[in-house]
């Protein structure tokens, strides 16, 4: 399994000289299987560049949406394969009580917000998901609701070479008076337990989190605690606050690693970073 980060920013794109290192594109991660299966996790603005890098021989791609907040779907309309008739694009997203996935995506992918209707895009097959398991190529995928604003799914993606857990927008510390809490009562626990690679929300500093409780995101500190609780092997702090510069993120991460001495490996969520899970332990 090869994992590539194409967008690691949260909330809104944050291009500029102060974010050149970590990148300004919003959430998008590519997962490649050894059998050629191509998964895309979220359709933030990072998906535009990913689309341009996919091979011409591509016949099918599967996009797994954790939720439909704009920073996770904003790039969909600019995903090249949606203009290629030979490519079948499967989009998997959380079911909702009232509106179908197609209707909810159409709120954005239609005028006046976007000039092209979703129905005019090439060969899209939509799948509504809740909690459960499904198979795409070599990947066995488990989906489950997690704590965030509006119905949001987290993913555990298992292949013969390892397990990736993707929780880009997640606030497991919301609720318990002391965090971390009992594992049975912690959002995302079953998805993350023992994962080889955990990509997790770390939007805020601990100080910022104090005034943003309930906004659906984690502090860097809580993301590390979640990593310890779930005994992951490797953590990728992700979904960086758009106001955090490269210098801010370098400083925050260094300070956190020095202070907590985590038992797992930590690799900053920097756009362009690649990971390979080969059964021998993950590594960028």
């Amino acid at each position, binding site marked *: 399994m090869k994992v590539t980060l194409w967008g690691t920013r949260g909330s809104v794109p944050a291009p500029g000289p102060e974010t050149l290192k970590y990148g300004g594109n919003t959430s998008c991660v590519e997962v490649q299987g050894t059998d050629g299966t191509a998964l895309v996790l979220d359709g933030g603005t990072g998906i535009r560049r990913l689309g341009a890098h996919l091979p011409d021989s591509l016949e099918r791609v599967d996009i797994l949406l954790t939720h439909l907040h704009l920073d996770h779907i904003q790039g969909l309309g600019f995903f090249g394969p949606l203009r290629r008739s030979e490519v079948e694009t499967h989009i998997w997203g959380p079911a909702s009580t009232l509106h179908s996935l197609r209707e909810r995506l159409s709120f954005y992918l239609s005028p006046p917000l976007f000039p092209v209707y979703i129905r005019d895009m090439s060969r899209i097959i939509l799948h509504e998901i809740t909690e459960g398991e499904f198979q795409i190529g070599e990947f066995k995928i488990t989906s*489950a*609701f997690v704590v965030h604003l509006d119905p949001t799914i987290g993913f555990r993606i298992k292949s013969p070479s390892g397990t990736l857990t993707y929780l880009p927008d997640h606030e497991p510390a919301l609720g318990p008076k002391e965090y971390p809490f009992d594992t049975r009562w912690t959002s995302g626990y079953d998805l993350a337990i023992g994962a080889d690679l955990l990509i997790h929300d770390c939007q805020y500093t601990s100080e910022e989190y104090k005034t943003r409780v309930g906004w659906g995101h984690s502090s860097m500190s809580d993301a590390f605690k979640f990593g310890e609780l779930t005994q992951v092997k490797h953590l990728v702090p992700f979904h960086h606050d758009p106001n955090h510069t490269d210098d801010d993120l370098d400083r925050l991460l260094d300070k956190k690693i020095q202070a907590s001495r985590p038992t797992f490996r930590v690799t900053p969520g920097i756009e362009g970073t690649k990971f390979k899970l080969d059964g021998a332990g993950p590594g960028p």
Partner: protein
Amino acid sequence: MGQQEIELILSRHWSSYLNTPIFIVDPQGNLLFYNEPAESILGRRFAVTGEMTAEEWSTIFNITDEDHRLLEPHELPLNIALQQHRPVYRRLYLAGLDNVQRHIETVCFPLIGQADRFLGAVAVFWELDD
């Protein structure tokens, strides 16, 4: 044991902040949690009782109607919410584990989560000033 459903996790954490007694059960009626205000009515701390099967809690608490007739398990408001998937309101008497009988009123409602997943039921109750 696996992780609880997200709606149950949020219900438990939400109830732990409220000053209203709340009692949460799973789809089989097994007790998952009651909050601190409920402890004073049920007569024992949750930390002591812990989780209980439906059979245990429905017999360990002595619950009667306002004429002091013992309610059968199928008559308990929480069980009606569980079995019929509808909210129920009732006044009754409850003797907790401290053997003190209290006059209470309760609203019980089913927990139906995303994708119509049936996840259990919640009882909210108050002690009445007789």
